[in-house]
């Protein structure tokens, strides 16, 4: 299968457009193509794999023991996708989705590839845009030298590069240990791993412990922790962090209760879990709700991952954090759903074929609840207590400014906040500030994040150049359409 290089060669319409070439998208694309749908899979990265299987077809890290077998499992999915009849458009950003006015019930998606934009029609859409790291706003997190743990993984997988100086990894969650072991194996000088897991989470997590003990995570987790803890300096019970430096990172100030120390370092990698990427599903008009246990906004979905907008399904970590293998299984189920809605298979066929996939999915998800509960970040890492901490990186708005707007001006949610502050109006469209703004308003007003609500997003979900939009070709349908 040849990847699309010129957007002019993409068809005007498809049965199914899948957005995202991670495990969910690839798997949905394969299954849908097998069921006879015409499929376009568009992804903004140059090669397939999403984040978890980033660079799986091109990685220069040839020693398989460094990235681990879980990573290499991804080559199977990619290989199946490459053999499928789906059309693959890499380096293609999908920036909008809306009703196709010429074909009621269908969708019109805005795509950009190679500096050119086009509107493409789809009868069904599966959003597989995955997850992003939960924002981790600490004082100084905008300094050059501070990055996410995911960024270090991407640098390693994609380019075989590691931080060159003294590196500190901080936060909580299983990825912390995985990254520490991968980077250490690749020769990084890790001077400390700082664990911010709140000690109080253990009692809440105990209820979910039996499931966790039966899950695949336990074995993996124990192995990873054993690999890292013995060799690296590990500090637990971290209650406060601040990155220090003038124009770039010079050190990290660590508080563990009343104990304070500063660790000089050149690179700081932050991680406190991942959240579903909701920008696209939000802009598409799908309903979301705030899930207390995952402490995240999730799309409202049925058992086929169909959202509240008929014809749009959401698969993978974008549906709720479940990990790579779950993502692939959800992608398949979403594909079955889409195929059924298009009449490509009957209801009992659909249910029968999906049954074993569901069983495997349920096994894979066992133990997630324990991880969600134990790794829920402490309040001070969700909403920084220091007023001067920047919480909107794009527009440089501070935590103090948000708290002030909530308290003094009576702002009840992030959308009203836009009357006074520019949070959410920068290019990232709230990806790095939204959860923090919600948390700050909620904490200040003494209400839940669910009551506070989230940004009301609109397309374009990624910037499009004026040149591309001005040159947008009229679709045949638009030309024939009656002038409104």
């Amino acid at each position, binding site marked *: 299968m040849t990847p699309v290089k010129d957007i002019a060669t993409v068809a005007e319409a498809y049965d199914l457009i899948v957005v995202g070439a991670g495990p969910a998208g690839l798997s949905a694309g394969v299954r849908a193509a097998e069921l006879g749908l015409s499929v376009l899979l568009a992804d903004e990265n140059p090669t397939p794999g999403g984040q978890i299987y980033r660079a799986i077809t091109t990685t220069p890290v040839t020693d398989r023991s460094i990235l681990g077998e879980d990573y290499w499992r991804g080559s199977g999915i990619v290989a199946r996708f490459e053999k499928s009849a789906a059309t693959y458009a890499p380096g293609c950003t999908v920036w909008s989705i809306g009703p196709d006015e010429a074909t009621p019930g269908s969708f019109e998606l805005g795509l950009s590839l190679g500096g050119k934009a086009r509107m493409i029609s789809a009868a069904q859409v599966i959003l597989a845009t995955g997850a992003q790291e939960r924002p981790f706003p600490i004082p100084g997190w905008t300094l050059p030298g501070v990055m996410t743990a995911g960024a270090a993984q991407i640098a390693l997988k994609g380019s075989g590069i590691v931080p060159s100086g003294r590196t500190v990894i901080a936060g909580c969650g299983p990825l912390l240990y995985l990254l520490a072991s991968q980077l250490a194996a690749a020769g990084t000088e890790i001077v400390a791993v700082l664990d911010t897991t709140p000690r109080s989470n253990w009692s809440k997590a105990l209820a979910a412990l039996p499931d966790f003990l039966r899950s695949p995570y336990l074995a993996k987790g124990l192995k990873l922790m054993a690999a890292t803890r013995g060799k690296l300096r590990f500090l637990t019970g971290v209650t406060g962090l601040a990155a220090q430096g003038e124009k770039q990172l010079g050190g990290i100030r660590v508080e563990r209760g009343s104990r304070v120390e500063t660790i000089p370092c050149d690179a700081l990698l932050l991680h406190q879990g991942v959240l579903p990427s909701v920008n696209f599903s939000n802009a598409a008009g799908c309903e979301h709700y705030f899930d207390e246990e995952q402490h995240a906004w999730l799309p409202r979905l049925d058992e086929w991952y169909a959202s509240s907008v008929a014809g749009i399904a959401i698969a993978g970590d974008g549906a709720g954090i479940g990990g790579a293998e779950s993502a692939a299984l959800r992608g398949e189920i979403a594909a079955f759903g889409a195929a059924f809605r298009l009449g490509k298979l009957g209801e009992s066929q659909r249910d029968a074929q999906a049954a074993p996939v569901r069983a495997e999915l349920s096994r894979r998800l066992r133990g997630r609840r324990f991880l969600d509960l134990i790794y829920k970040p402490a309040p001070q890492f969700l909403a920084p207590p220091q007023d001067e901490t920047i919480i909107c990186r794009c527009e440089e708005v501070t935590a103090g400014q948000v708290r002030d707007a909530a308290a003094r001006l009576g702002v009840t949610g992030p959308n009203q906040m836009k009357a*006074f502050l520019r949070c959410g109006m920068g290019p990232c469209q709230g990806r790095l500030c939204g959860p923090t703004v919600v948390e700050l308003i909620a904490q200040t007003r003494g209400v839940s994040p669910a009551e506070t609500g989230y940004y009301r997003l609109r397309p374009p979900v990624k*910037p499009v*150049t004026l040149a591309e939009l001005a040159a947008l070709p009229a679709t045949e349908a*638009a030309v024939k359409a009656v002038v409104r």
Partner: protein
Amino acid sequence: MRTGRDSADVVVIGGGIHGCSTALHCALRGLSVILIEKDHAGRHASGVNAGGVRQLARHVAEIPLSNASMAIWHDIANLVDDDCGFSSDGQVLVAENEADLAQCRARVEDLNLRGFHHEEMIDAKELREIVPAVSEDCPGGVISRRDGAAIPLRATQAFKLKAQRIGVDVREGVRVTKIEHDGANWRVVTDAGECLAPRIVNAAGAWGGRIAADLGEPVPLEAVAPMLSITAPLPAFIKPVVILRGRKLSFKQFGNGTVLIGGGYLGRALPDENRTILDWSKLASNLKTVWELFPIMRGASIVRAWAGIEGRIADELPVFGRSAKHEGVYHQFGFSLHGFQLGPGAGAVMAEIIATGRSNVPIDGLGIERFAGSH
């Protein structure tokens, strides 16, 4: 749980800039006011428009209200304790060719005859001094020097907050379901209780037509969704707001460098769902105009696009003034994509009419009675 009065001197329906301004000005005159808004103040057209504070190119019937409003804009911080992000660098209407320019000239002459001097002709040389980035082909235009722009959501919220501070009972998230006569009063029934007042103001924007219809005075109003888009920050290259005569365009660069592009291209409005749907092919036409007129913008990136829900009346003029049928009912809606600048002044004039029975500011041609005969 509502705690507040059950009655007031005035009930204002709608928390856009018009409703909030009228509520504030009524309260400044000593009247007790309840303001009812179904979402939050500035949720719709008032909060998401281009922010143009414009006298330029207005219909003659609106100019007196516009003059009253402009005086307030230039001293807005004294009224609402917030500068609302208002800046005044003028607004320029660019003529794209000689025919355009001739029409501009005719218009300015007509205004002058009527005693209005806020619009002035500018030649090609002055045009390029004021708007250096404009295409070389443009032969001149019209400028309204006291015009400018403000931040719409902030301005609307500022009016609301000031109104609250001086005692207006603002009820957000409350929807009016019915209006009934009750002796000398009007009973305004909502989904959170009812209130009584001898005077009510229908400032319900795109939903104002329904209220008017329920009161037996339908008007030809359509809910429309004018689209806007905004760029990532660019180096400062233009100070005044620019509009075109021939084609639809409005164009404004903020202090932070972002450029706001509008012009009244319509998406689709779904007023019952508080939702709008963007029309990308129309936005493409909008942006193509920018491409042609401002070559310097060709490398810009659009980071956001949106559309508000606005009420447009068939003759492109608002309904403003007393009801034609009912004592104690006043209408202030249907501003047809150009109501933002009028808000502050219209509220002052409406409050004057309510409190004293009349206003010195002429509002001929804007009354709801112009639609009375057509049913």
